[in-house]
């Protein structure tokens, strides 16, 4: 194992020396971000190779307007909010779900199935499932929407904040900046969509896209492959995570997503409105769509004053460049979403990387 790491490290050093210029590689997965920091991977990279933590943490990219809608629903006595634990501390305009938890109608679930079970157990209430996450998580929501349909569980609905990774990568390359030289692509999103899905980024934008697993050696070898491609001047599509990821991905999961959802324009924190980037329930499932049931819609909201999470997510600044970082904004008292989520760039930087 150590041999593999040493070899990859040497190859990275050689490639970066040959390249001579600044190289920025963006990871688009919160689990990669945490693994990179936890294992000190940044500290062994050459000076001219920088890793940027992109919009890979679903909590971090969820628009504040979405959180505000959830909080509004949490105030209703006839609703139970079922949410993954990651979302509980994200601040909206008025508090977070954690502050609403005192009302006892906010329940943390580990699976969409648990949310559906809550609806079965509480026929007098409407259960709203806070459906966030990328392609890895979306199929689980689709399954319960179909189960709710089959079982006529009318007191169940979802507020879809599900997002698609590739439109965000396109948006980053099209508008915000051109300082991203390559992408380390997410492992488990790719398990669903297949590594072939990133071909459009390679072909249209000429950026290497390499899928990697989450162990340190897999990440370092992924970075090594990217550096090799950059030094040869040819962007390629490659998966280094063959134990899990195939070219076509999980077809059954893709089918169920397509059956239940359609892509619409959506708001992302820091990136604004991105075309066809958010998933909305198709009309045939509209009775399970919380926004329709309650006649509410997500507004683009003002970002929190002084918070620069948006620029962090685009790879334009590093967390310590934000005036709030480590002073007014800490994991104990987070201001911005990148500090709230343990997978956020700011939280990871605060915990593992402050002195680097």
């Amino acid at each position, binding site marked *: 194992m150590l041999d593999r790491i040493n070899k990859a490290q040497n190859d990275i050093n050689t490639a970066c020396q040959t390249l001579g210029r600044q190289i920025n590689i963006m990871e688009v997965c919160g689990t990669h971000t945490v693994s990179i920091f936890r294992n000190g991977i940044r500290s062994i990279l050459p000076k001219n190779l920088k890793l940027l933590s992109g919009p890979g943490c679903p909590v971090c990219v969820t628009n504040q307007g979405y959180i505000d809608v959830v909080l509004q629903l949490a105030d209703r006595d006839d609703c139970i909010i079922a949410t993954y634990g990651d979302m509980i501390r994200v601040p909206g305009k008025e508090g977070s779900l954690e502050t609403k938890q005192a009302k006892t109608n906010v329940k943390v679930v580990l699976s969409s199935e648990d949310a559906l079970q809550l609806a079965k157990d509480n026929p007098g209430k409407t259960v709203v499932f806070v459906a966030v996450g990328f392609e890895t998580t979306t199929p689980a929501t689709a399954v319960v929407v179909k189960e709710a349909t089959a079982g006529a569980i009318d007191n169940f609905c979802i507020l879809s904040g599900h997002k698609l990774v590739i439109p965000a990568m396109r948006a980053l390359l099209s508008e915000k900046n051109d300082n991203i030289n390559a992408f380390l692509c997410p492992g488990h999103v790719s398990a669903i969509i297949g590594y072939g899905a990133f071909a459009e980024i390679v072909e249209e934008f000429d950026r290497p896209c390499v899928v990697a697993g989450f162990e340190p050696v897999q990440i370092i070898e992924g970075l090594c492959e990217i550096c090799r491609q950059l030094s040869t001047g040819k962007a390629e599509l490659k998966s280094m995570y063959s134990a899990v990821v195939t070219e076509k991905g*999980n077809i059954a999961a893709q089918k169920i997503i397509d059956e239940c959802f359609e892509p619409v324009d959506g708001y992302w924190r820091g990136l604004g409105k991105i075309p066809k980037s958010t998933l909305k329930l198709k009309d045939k499932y509209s009775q399970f769509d919380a926004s329709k049931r309650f006649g509410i819609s997500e507004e683009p909201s003002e970002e929190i004053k002084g918070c620069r999470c948006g620029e962090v997510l685009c790879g334009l600044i590093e967390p310590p460049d934000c005036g709030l970082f480590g002073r007014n904004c800490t994991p104990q008292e987070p201001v911005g979403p990148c500090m709230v989520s343990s997978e956020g760039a700011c939280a990871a930087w605060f915990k593992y990387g402050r002195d680097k």
Partner: protein
Amino acid sequence: MCLAIPARIVELEQDVAVVDAMGNRYKTKTTLLPEAKLGDLVLVHAGFAISLVDEEEAKQTWQLIAEIDEFDDTQNKVSG
């Protein structure tokens, strides 16, 4: 959030499985992985098996998780 844990299917009835990950057993759905069979190693995310995984990869991930747990325990002890 996209974290997925390898686990072995030890019981399977239609699309409801019991999986074993490092000695912990829990319920998982195989709806998204219809080809999954009893004894298979799968990656579990948010209560659903999303992909098959090979033995070596699963072992490495379990080892990594065990190391992180030990590391976190040590940290907790240090910080009192």
